[in-house]
């Protein structure tokens, strides 16, 4: 088999990032919210590898803890979206008819809203806690998954082995959960990895507008926004969080592309 470099490379990036996020407490050199008035806006040095911010906090430590927040928002938001999409998409595809029309028109309606502004509006009403942000990104981005799953189920349900499982007396619920969804999971996995990248970017965008994860909790997005006022004197505060968002998204996209080549 041809070596799938994008998959290998993507997995490598994400594994390293995940390890950093999981062991944040062990590897971060400083407390991420410890303020040090003697070392404000210090450039990268041997003491502070990535420099310090306007309050003297160590940027490397903040970014390591930020990885935890950003990655978990990506994973959980996409998890929520995938579960909703799987349930609604498979019901629509399997039962067809009126139920299908109802669900798919609801999908169309949801798709009519510009997602980012919908999220902005909801966050403005609710409080922008980490949990709320995960949930809101999740419930506004399941429509693609639902369409994908429905299309897969539509072709799968005509396959002979589905008739065979009806012939041994399996219920509709069992046919959907045990026989249809496992066969449709490949393309869903591809879209989920690509979705994680999208969710991380969305959270960064929200944080940049001040409606994402709230300080002092560090996320890559809100480190970036805090750097805006000192952009002229402290380039490291903008470049490092920006580059790590870039690398993470590239990592997930590489996995997505690699998986698509392999199974999609």
């Amino acid at each position: 088999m041809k070596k799938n470099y994008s998959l290998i490379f993507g997995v490598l990036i994400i594994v390293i990032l995940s390890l950093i996020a999981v062991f944040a407490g062990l590897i971060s050199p400083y407390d991420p919210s410890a303020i040090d008035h003697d070392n404000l806006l210090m450039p990268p040095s041997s003491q502070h590898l990535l420099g310090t911010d306007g309050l003297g906090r160590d940027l490397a430590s903040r970014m390591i803890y930020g990885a935890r927040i950003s990655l978990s928002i990506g994973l959980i938001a996409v998890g929520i979206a995938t579960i909703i999409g799987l349930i609604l998409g498979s019901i629509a595809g399997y039962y067809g008819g009126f139920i299908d029309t109802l669900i798919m028109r609801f999908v169309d309606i949801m798709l009519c809203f510009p997602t980012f502004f919908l999220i902005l509006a909801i966050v403005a009403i609710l409080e922008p806690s980490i949990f709320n942000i995960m949930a809101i990104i999740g419930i506004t981005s399941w429509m693609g998954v639902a369409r994908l799953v429905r299309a897969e189920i539509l072709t799968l349900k005509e396959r002979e082995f589905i008739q065979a499982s009806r012939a041994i007396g399996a219920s509709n619920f069992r046919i959907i959960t045990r026989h249809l969804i496992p066969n449709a999971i490949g393309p869903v996995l591809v879209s989920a990895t690509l979705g994680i990248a999208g969710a991380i970017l969305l959270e960064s965008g929200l944080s940049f507008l001040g409606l994402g994860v709230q300080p002092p909790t560090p996320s890559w997005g809100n480190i970036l926004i805090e750097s805006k006022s000192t952009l002229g004197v402290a380039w490291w505060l903008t470049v490092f969080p920006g580059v790590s968002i870039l690398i993470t998204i590239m990592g997930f996209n590489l996995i997505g592309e690699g998986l698509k080549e392999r199974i999609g």
Partner: protein
Amino acid sequence: MDKLLEIKNLKVSFYLDDKVFTAVNGVNLEIINDRVLVLAGESGSGKTITALSIAKILPANASIDSGEIKFEGRDLLKIDEKSLSKIRGKEIAYIFQEPTAYLNPVYTIGNQIAEAIILHQDKNRKDAAKETLKLLGRVRINDPERVFFDYPHQLSGGMNQRALIAMALACKPKLLIADEPTTSLDVTIEAEILKLLMDLKKELKFSLLFITHNLSIAKKIADKISIMYKGEIVEEGACESIFGSPRHFHTKELINAYQKIGKI
């Protein structure tokens, strides 16, 4: 001479947009306990649709317009879906034409046979697995322990058909419906599978509805033959009368077809 199944005046149509195609038009059939009824006819004569109507596992765009399907005195067309799914696989089981297509590609053989057992019998996974190994031996698979963990694509058509027979007989059904079970297999495997079916029939004492277009098979196994043509039963009788004095031209065609091949 107890009647196990009695089909009266069955009419099944396909609905495509606003067009109606009647596939089965007023079929009457009787299956006697512990006997073999062969339903023969050309492709598209309605044999399979008649068979699928019995446990109501028809394709979504087909529907039963009228008739009665009495199984042990109960009209299967009048009972609800839930009680039907208790009959499917437990009382009435199916085997089909393309064995590999009728097995779910994402599960092992053992897993799928065990599912058939768990669906209708109060058994845990471990007991079901034991039972599955016994069944695999019973359908004369040489190394059940290996085949148990094989996926359908790793096995030949003949092996998969044996696995499907094991699955169908898992709950000792009273009626086995075999829809051209040997058509996609080569001649030596065909003979083995037929012998296996007839031996199992003696052992387990089920009735058999065997569908084929090949009258040479019918001659070997049938107690009674019904010839179907364009959705209707055009001739029926014991082997001797069908082969000795065929009345309908389609019966003569079918007999000629296999005799010609025999001469080549």
